[in-house]
């Protein structure tokens, strides 16, 4: 996981709860570098999981809710550093459809060590889009939060949920994106 993700989490916690709470979370999660992450470096995923666990305990929140909130917070910051500039009239659904072949593809080119999830289109209608989510990290909640964050940024509000699908050889995660009226 890139250091920039940890920095965003820190920003979110400090914005919403202050430096003291972040210090406390670090004490509980106890990362080896004491929390001195650098954006461009990669760190073990476990360090993020430990922080999220500490947060669920401290805030008494469901982990899914927390990850989704973080995803919503994270998206605008990730979008600013995207390796590809999209046309101004790109819609949210177009963006989601291009995500894997364009954004994640370019991300891997810029950082060969990056392991972004694989998100492919299953179906698309006027208001509903179904995507297939494949990631070794199993952070589907974070993905849903990121999609909702994208909806907000694109001024096309959506709800994103996920479910386990078993209509294939192996179980897979289905992301359902629905426009909000």
């Amino acid at each position: 996981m890139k250091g920039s993700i940890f920095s965003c989490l820190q920003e979110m916690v400090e914005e919403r709860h202050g430096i003291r709470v972040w210090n406390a979370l670090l004490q509980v999660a106890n990362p080896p570098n004491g929390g001195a992450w650098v954006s461009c470096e990669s760190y073990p995923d476990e360090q993020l999981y430990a922080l999220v666990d500490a947060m669920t305990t401290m805030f008494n929140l469901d982990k899914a809710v927390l990850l989704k909130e973080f995803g919503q917070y994270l998206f605008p910051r990730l979008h600013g550093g995207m390796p590809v500039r999209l046309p101004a009239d790109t819609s949210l659904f177009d963006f989601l459809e291009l995500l894997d072949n364009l954004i994640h593809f370019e991300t891997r080119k810029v950082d060969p060590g990056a392991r972004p999830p694989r998100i492919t289109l299953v179906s698309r209608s006027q208001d509903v889009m179904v995507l297939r989510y494949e990631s070794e990290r199993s952070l589907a909640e974070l993905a849903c939060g990121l999609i909702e964050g994208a909806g907000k940024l694109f001024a096309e509000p959506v709800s994103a949920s996920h479910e386990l699908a078993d209509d294939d050889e192996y179980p897979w995660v289905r992301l359902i994106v629905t426009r909000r009226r």
Partner: protein
Amino acid sequence: MGETDSDAPSLRSELDDYRIAYERERDARKRAERLAEQYASDLFKANEALNIKALETRVSHAQSQLVMSIVEYVQAHSELADVLPKLMDNILKVTRWPVGFCDRIDPVAGERSEGTLTFINGVVRAEIAALLRRSRGPIARLIDRRMLDTEQSEYVVELEASGMVLAGELQMIGLNHIVALPLRVSGKVHAIFYFVCPDARNDIRNTVVFLHTIVSLLGFLVENKQKTDLLNANYSQLQLAHRSLKDTQEQLMHTERLASVGTLAAGVAHEINNPVCYVKTNLNSMRHSWRHVSDELGLANDLVRCVIAAEWENAKQIANDLERMRVEHDQSLMLEDLHAMLEDCVDGTNRVIDIVKGLKQFARPSSPVKTPVDLNQCVLNALRLTTNELKYKANVTTDLQPLPALLLDRQGIEQVLVNLLVNAAQAIDVKGEIHVATEVVDGAVECRVKDTGCGIQPDLLKKIFDPFYTSKPVGVGTGLGLSISHSIIRNNAGDIDVESFPGEGSLFRIRFAVLP
């Protein structure tokens, strides 16, 4: 408003929080700075590597251009003298060496054949250029013979150890090496290139290897061009020889035709003699009849004159004389005979004209021209020309089936047929048979000439189409007839073969494919 006692712990606690955050962020910053330094260092090295690559690419590009220019020069110019100055200029541009010399060598004598060409790279100052020019003599004395007397492909001399005159002055301007390369074409030195180069620290080795390749390539291309020129010259000579052979063949064919005319002459003379004889007999008879006609016409004229003058008695006498003469001469029979004799004379004259025309056509020298031809017509013409040759030797029969037109050299084909017919007649001792047949067989037009002559021995069969082979007595054949016939048939895209049974006769078969 000052701080209260109760605020102090809270403030301390808050300060602690900031201190912790500060220390953590400082650690992160230091880590980031280390990374930034590392990235900067990596970037610098990558940039250095890129610069080296770019330089290598530029050098490689310039070298490729040099190679291409050599190929273009050699393709465009035939003279080495035109190529060398351009090559020297380009080498100096690519190597950036200040000076180069080029000596043409006479490949046979092994001596310099022309004055030295000196090339100064544009960046050299005038006084240094003068020094470089003066250095040519000492360099030649140091190197020339070694290049010419050995098969060494390159020669690099360190000035410091050379003891050469002007070596010290050249070193003063940073030139420490002389590079010499001979241009060898087919193993012989045709030119020597000399270059004065900077310090060895500039690593001249790779450049020398490259120049060696360039000069070898030039040598190879020049050699190749010389061989190509030689080949072209040989080809031109071959073309001339071919043309001359073709002319000779045409003359030979004409000679053979004339020989056939000679063979046919007696027969043709006889053929002409017959009509000429009866034309003469007829003319004699007509001269005799003419006297009667003249007498009768004289009386008829007198009669007309008496009638006009109304001398009726005289007229009656003359009419009686005329009637007596008419009965006496059997005038109607005489007129019939005269008419018949005139017709015979016209026929006889036409026959002579035809025979002479056929012979003239046959003997006329001309290049083969292919026109649409009916092979049956050729057979008939050949038979007409050889009538007298054949008629005392054989009964000639024909079976000429309708044939499609063929694109053939008519005169040549008639010559072949005359030759086959005369051969057939000459093969027959006493009276025999000659049968000529034409038909379409398996999509090809076939003409067969069969005789009941003496035939040909099996061991001689394979020789009969060889030039100058003849089985006839001396003076009878040229020995070229069948050889030329074979050549004519092949030139008309046909085939000729023979079957023969000694004592029974021979069958010559000519075949031409029918074009779709």
